[in-house]
């Protein structure tokens, strides 16, 4: 297999962007990415688009050629990937595999979601489409409800507290306040988080990620070609994508994500590293409990210790294992189809030293973890300085 590098990145800002369309967002991120790499549209050999629910959110299907042609890419494969909130993580995985295998030399991967044109109950219903429609969704479950049930069980088995969940939200908002592209650039207190409006008990609005519009893009090519391009390349050392049952009630233990543990084990093996070698990470904090479980399943903290690890500040900007320096899905925002690729962009910004006020000193090797649904898809990526 060939060594693959990220040769360019492009992001829109995240937020409730009433003036933007799914097309304008995806085209902006894609064009910025090509410009960042110094590559023209006719050099792109395939276009992979991550998008969860464009047809439901904005009534547009056949999205990949729709976006590709807008940025001047025609005559090549243009394909949409759907894997719930891991849609662009899945697109990234398949683009990496295609370049590594020698099928294409240069692939553009873009993720996009335009969510805020729908009212909240309709958004909840569309997102619930990533759950099992014959069981949990029929019973009235929303995604906050599924993660609330995970949180309840984690609290029951390990003594995780609401204060520890709140610590995750407070930390991610503090980081997001330093990110000019973030959806919600404001700090919050533990008291605010604890007293937020209930969404699905024990989760309040402060435990939930944001409903956002936004897009992100990365250009993948071989390490040799990337060295001749405009931006400093970042080496993709491992990408692993795994799957599991959709329904939560099909899992023996819901306090862990088996797909995440499997993807992490595969990625660590592929990269030849251990959790201790990871300098920083972007994890899928769709809900505060998801970040706590992610840092356990990735091996940053022992099982059941994710809450105390977070509350002790270990995952903060100055902690031993900085997590979600971008602000995470909680504060940066979560345009679901864009999230997987946006996480990769955040890793690249840190490694290049372009992270501004949230810049880390120790930033050689970063990990991204992107989760679909309540764990039915997981993608883990490890990147390093080239």
């Amino acid at each position, binding site marked *: 297999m060939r060594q693959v590098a990220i040769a360019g990145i492009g992001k829109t800002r995240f937020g409730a962007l009433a003036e933007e369309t799914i097309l304008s967002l995806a085209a902006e991120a894609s064009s910025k990415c090509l410009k960042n790499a110094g590559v023209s549209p006719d050099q792109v050999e395939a276009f992979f688009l991550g998008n969860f629910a464009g047809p439901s959110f904005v009534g547009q299907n056949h999205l990949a050629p729709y976006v590709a042609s807008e940025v001047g890419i025609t005559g090549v494969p243009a394909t949409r990937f759907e894997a719930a909130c891991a849609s662009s993580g899945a697109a990234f995985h398949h683009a990496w595999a295609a370049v590594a295998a020698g099928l294409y030399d240069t692939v553009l991967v873009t993720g996009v979601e335009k969510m805020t044109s729908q009212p909240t*109950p309709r958004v909840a219903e569309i997102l*619930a489409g990533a759950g099992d429609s014959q069981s949990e969704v029929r019973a*009235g479950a*929303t995604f906050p409800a599924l993660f*609330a049930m995970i949180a309840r069980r984690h609290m029951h088995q390990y003594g995780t507290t609401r204060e520890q969940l709140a610590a995750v939200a407070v930390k991610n908002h503090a980081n997001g306040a330093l990110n000019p592209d973030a959806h919600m650039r404001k700090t919050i207190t533990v008291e605010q988080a604890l007293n937020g409006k209930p*969404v*699905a008990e024990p989760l309040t609005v402060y435990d939930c990620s944001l409903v956002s519009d936004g897009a992100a893009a990365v250009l993948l090519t071989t390490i040799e070609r990337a060295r001749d391009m405009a931006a400093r390349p970042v080496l993709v050392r491992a990408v692993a994508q795994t799957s599991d049952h959709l*329904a939560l009630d099909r899992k023996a233990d*819901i306090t862990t994500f088996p797909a995440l543990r499997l993807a992490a084990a595969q990625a660590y093996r592929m990269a030849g590293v251990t959790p201790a070698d990871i300098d920083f990470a972007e994890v899928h904090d769709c809900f505060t409990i998801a970040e706590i479980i992610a840092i356990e399943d990735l091996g940053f903290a022992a099982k059941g210790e994710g809450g105390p690890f977070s509350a002790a500040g270990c995952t903060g900007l100055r902690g031993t294992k900085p997590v979600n320096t971008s602000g995470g899905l909680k504060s940066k925002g979560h345009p679901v189809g864009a999230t997987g690729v946006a996480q990769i962009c955040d890793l690249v910004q840190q490694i290049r030293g372009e992270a501004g006020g949230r810049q880390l000193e120790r930033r050689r090797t970063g990990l991204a973890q992107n989760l679909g649904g309540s764990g039915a898809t997981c993608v883990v990526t490890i990147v390093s300085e080239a």
Partner: protein
Amino acid sequence: MKQGTVYTETVIHSAPEQFVHEAPYQIAIVTHDDGSRATVRIRGEAVHIGDRVEFIEAREGVLYYRKVQ
């Protein structure tokens, strides 16, 4: 009547469009005595992890359970 134990639960305040008129409502994952699991709707008194619950009825594909008194 089919019985089981509450494995986990939540009370939903922010409901999807089709259930907005029913909120707040409680759902739970129940572990039946034969080991099988189901995601169900709770009627009546709120339940907690470890509570015993029993099947009441199935309506439009939704399983309704209540706390065993």
